[in-house]
């Protein structure tokens, strides 16, 4: 069990990590030369499960980062609520993989295999990523769901996610009529964007 001084040390180490991150982004330190902090943080789930991770891994989550910097923890344990254990493990696993790397799509696919993210957990994972503030994980999971939706008709999408069809027939007619009147949104202003601010 850590004491108060150790908590303060943890907080200071978090601040140092943040500073190093900023310096790396500004190009003052080469990312390769950066050595990872060996301080560990304990994350406690709403189920009661605990998980010990390196500080750099934990800092990938912006919510945990804020907690660390603000000192909102006791005895080195940060309480993280909002998701059950498996989802949480997956999220942490993703963080461990993506420390210091710029994710590309093929890299993300590899991670999905390694960490074991399957489609049935995607929705919960998006929610967890949003709560924990993990941009990389949120981007990846949203992209995965978007890829699943691409190319499907509205009936297929409803079947896939088990959504109830609550639009009335007249509403659908109105939407269908209106959709003929619009051009695609992909690039209505593209030819202007070169000069428009």
């Amino acid at each position, binding site marked *: 069990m850590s004491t108060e001084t150790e908590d303060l040390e943890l907080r200071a180490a978090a601040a140092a990590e943040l500073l190093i991150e900023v310096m790396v982004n500004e190009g003052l330190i080469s990312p390769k030369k950066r050595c990872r902090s060996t301080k560990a943080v304990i994350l406690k789930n709403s189920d009661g499960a605990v998980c010990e991770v390196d500080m750099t891994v934990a800092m990938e989550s912006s919510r945990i980062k804020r907690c660390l910097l603000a000192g909102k923890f006791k005895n080195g344990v940060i309480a993280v609520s909002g998701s059950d254990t498996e989802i949480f493990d997956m999220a942490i696993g993703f963080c461990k993989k993506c420390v210091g790397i710029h994710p590309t799509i093929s890299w993300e696919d590899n991670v999905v295999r390694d960490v074991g993210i399957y489609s049935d957990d995607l929705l919960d994972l998006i929610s967890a990523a949003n709560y924990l503030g993990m941009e990389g994980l949120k981007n990846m999971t949203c992209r995965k769901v978007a890829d699943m939706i*691409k190319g499907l008709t509205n009936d297929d999408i409803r079947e896939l996610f088990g*959504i109830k069809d609550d639009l009335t027939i007249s509403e659908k007619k109105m939407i269908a009529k209106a959709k003929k009147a619009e051009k695609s949104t992909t690039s209505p202003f593209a030819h202007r964007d070169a000069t428009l601010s």
Partner: protein
Amino acid sequence: MSANRSTELPTEMRTRDGRMLPSDAITTVLSVDLLIQILDRIRDPRDRKSWRLVSRGFLRAESLHRRELRPLRRETLPALLRRYVALERLDLSACPSIDDACLAAVAAAAEGLKVVCLARANRLGWRGLEALVAACPRLDTVDLSHSVGVGDREAAALAEAKGLREIRLDKCLAITDVGLAKVAVGCPGLERLGIKWCLEISDIGIELLAKKCPEIKFLDISYLKVTNESLRSISSLEKLEDLYMVGCSFVDDEGLQLLSNGSKSLQCIDVSRCDNVSSRGLTSLVEGNQCLQKINAGDCFPDLESSFLSKLSCVKNTLTVLKLDGFQVSSSSLRVIGGSCKNLVEIGLSKCTGVTDESISELVAICVDLRTVDLTCCHHLTDNALYSIADNCKRVESLLLESCSLITEKGLERIATCCSNLKEIDLTDCGVNDTALKFLSACSELTTLKLGLCSDISDNGLAHIGSNCGELLELDLYRCGRVTDEGLAAIASGCKRLRRLNLCYCTQITDNGLNNLSCLEELSDIELRGLARITSSGITAVAIGCKSLVELDLKRCYSVDDAGLWALARYALNLRQLTISYCPVTGLGLCNLLGSLRCLQDVKLVHLSWVSIEGFELALRASCGKLKKLKLLSGLRDVLSSELLQMLQTHGCRIRWVNKPLVFKG
């Protein structure tokens, strides 16, 4: 519903222990924000349409997400604006006959608008603009280019919007210094202004603009009759980054000298077609603005003196784009350019005389980062130039070689092997053959391929292109007489994303070829001039299949008759521009066409010998309020009723009267 979709349905979402997810799990687990994040990654408009029809929650997410809109028809505007409450950008340039009342209604419905495009809104006046400005406090960009009715009163109405940062008034011929002054005084935060072709504007207006709007970063004063005094005023703009002064004939070297005051902000300057500018002016410009990134000095004066070229070294760190079209280039010029500017990314030597293989080699040996190389009409270039480019500039993406008739397939083979990023290549009038196309097909990123006047191209070459260039967006086969329906089949099967196709005077094309084209759903611009063998059944196939058809040119298609027009009226609902000059159509077909198509804005109806006067009268009346541009034989001006012509004019339609002969071209 979606017969063309080949994707399989992914396995259903189940929980880890195999149960079905409770219905609506997605909308309960994910908030609207997260739904919007997923929607953000779905770009294809067809997928978006599917999304909208899923459920109320999804529809709502989409309504909140939609920030920009480009409606094609005026009638549906109210419903669209009610649905999309978060609109910020609205492009009304495609909507026919936007007038004051319409704009006022739009503004009242969409108060969060930031960007509004009203280009070519010929019927718009100050009342509409006043309403827009009053209702949308966040307005920061307005584009009124080419709107005939916009003059000083409208500019005054616009000037009430204090927060405006970008205004485009290109070709608003009625704007004078008074209007410009109102805008300058009313919008002190103005950053970008385009007043191209507003010929009434003089030095006085520019002087006031420069005094009142110090934040200006982008200014386009092309073709204005301004003198050096304007440049004196402009030189006081400390944040100016882009200055376009194409065709300003009253500006000379003294003026350019006034612009050269050691500014660190000027990045892009375009002085093309300024007849009175010479090397001296350009030299002082480069010396005085050492952060220039883009210089366009095309067609100013014939002789490129090496004193100017060596001065380019003042901007060697920043210069990336250099366009020197129309110059007389000496053997050492390109070497000096290369030596002065190593970082060039784009070089334009279109219509330059004296460009040789050796000089190109010297240039590309140094400028290895070149991505766009424009060598249009550099007639003396041979394959050696292509070898040098291929060996040195691996990142070349755009290569314009129109009229370089000495190049052969060997040079193109080297280019295709070494430059895998090649996206655009213009080989018009180069005499390339099928072997060249075989080599070029290795460039799988190719998006634009222009082969106009290459009469040696046949279906074999097109088969190669179709087999590998799946990203092709534009294909130009103007006067490639040996292309037949088989070639079109190959293209249609391989290049599914094709958007623009030019088959003018490829006389062997028949209806079968057009049937093949009908599977290209993104094809929006087709030119089929002079194809005597295509009939209405081919046009029908295209109208049904090419759902994105926007522009169609059927001039001199002597076998297309009313049946073709019926098909277009029924199926080509997005058609905006149509040319049916010289086609054997009658008044009946024309009337139906102009009455039905609600997006049609630009029609060319020259020499429709089978259409009677009554036919024209009826048809043009049916189209009133929609057409913006019309081209007719000048003989009709005396015959059509003045009432009709008046009505067309009041509805904002511009008529071009032409005198074309009825000769049968080969």
